[in-house]
């Protein structure tokens, strides 16, 4: 049974996903910039880099919880967890 997709729930899930790739031991919060934790080439092949695994994981969460998966904004690695969550929620 899917639960309601809220911004707060989305942020908590985004932080949980980012912690998996946090090799620099950055203190992750909703203000964290994705680029501080994720990279486009840390796992091979590049399709399964931390950046992509995070994005695909997030898309899976949105889709499985009856949300609308938006096209991610250009340069999303350079924005914060909160900003990306707000963008995603604005498309619901």
């Amino acid at each position, binding site marked *: 049974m899917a639960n309601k997709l809220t911004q707060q729930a989305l942020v*908590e899930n985004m932080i*949980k996903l980012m912690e998996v790739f946090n090799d620099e031991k950055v203190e992750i919060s909703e203000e964290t910039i994705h680029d501080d934790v994720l990279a*486009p080439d840390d796992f091979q092949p590049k*399709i399964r880099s931390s950046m992509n695994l995070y994005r695909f994981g997030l898309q899976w969460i949105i889709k499985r919880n009856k949300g609308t*998966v938006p096209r991610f904004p250009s340069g999303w690695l350079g924005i914060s967890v909160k900003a990306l969550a707000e963008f995603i929620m604005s498309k619901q």
Partner: protein
Amino acid sequence: MKKLLIGILLITSLAANAQLGIELGTKRTELGKTALTFGISYLQSLDSIFGGQELFVAGKNSFFVVTPELDVVSGTEDAFSSIIVKASGLWNVFKTHTVAGLEAPDYNKTFHSFPISLGAESNSQFNNINGILEVGWIPFYQSYARNTPEFIKRSRFGIFMQAGYKFISDSSGVGGQENESAEPEKKGIARARGFFSMDTDAFLTVGALKIGLVGTAEGWLDLANSEQYYRLDGRMRIYLTPDQYFDLIWQRGASAPLFNQAEQIGVGLTFKL
């Protein structure tokens, strides 16, 4: 070389929404010549090309996604060269858990990636061209939220099966361009491939410099011709920034399609855009 550079310029002009890495360097080749080398890696999601989500499929405990991918390694003189252009698919199978009331993939538990790709591999002169279908298995066990030793989290490995066809094979190259593949022209290709790599990241600080080590071993088993090939790549990495670094490089053996087993040393500077 000019055609290749033009192609790269075209691709980079399309790269506004893509992941792009550029490596420039100079290397001492097998024939003792100094070569300028460059590497381009490029990955753009089909999502950013088509603007839709139709190529992302979410299953009960898995997802499947497809992207195009390009990897170029080349240089002047007889430096190693290879070009791989492919459409890459990824099927990820994982356990799920609930976070903040939402069903989510549990990346903290080991999960399994099955990359699938269909494409072409060539050298920079385009006189050795193979068509390849590749299916692989790569486990993900490196979650930094897990209490496992750091060196395990820094390791990577995977195995693949490759099947294809050798369209063009030219044996006139010398040095690092010499074709040492036993795969005959106009014949089928059947290989197993495996890789293991370790990247320490910046583990040593000397003054203002941060230094790391990166090592990769890759091997191919040519099932059709009972041959084996390998590639070793060792780097001492000096970080200028996390996205810009200087490498001291030692390489032995090249990848497909030439499978040249020569040796080269060099330096490289990498920018990620």
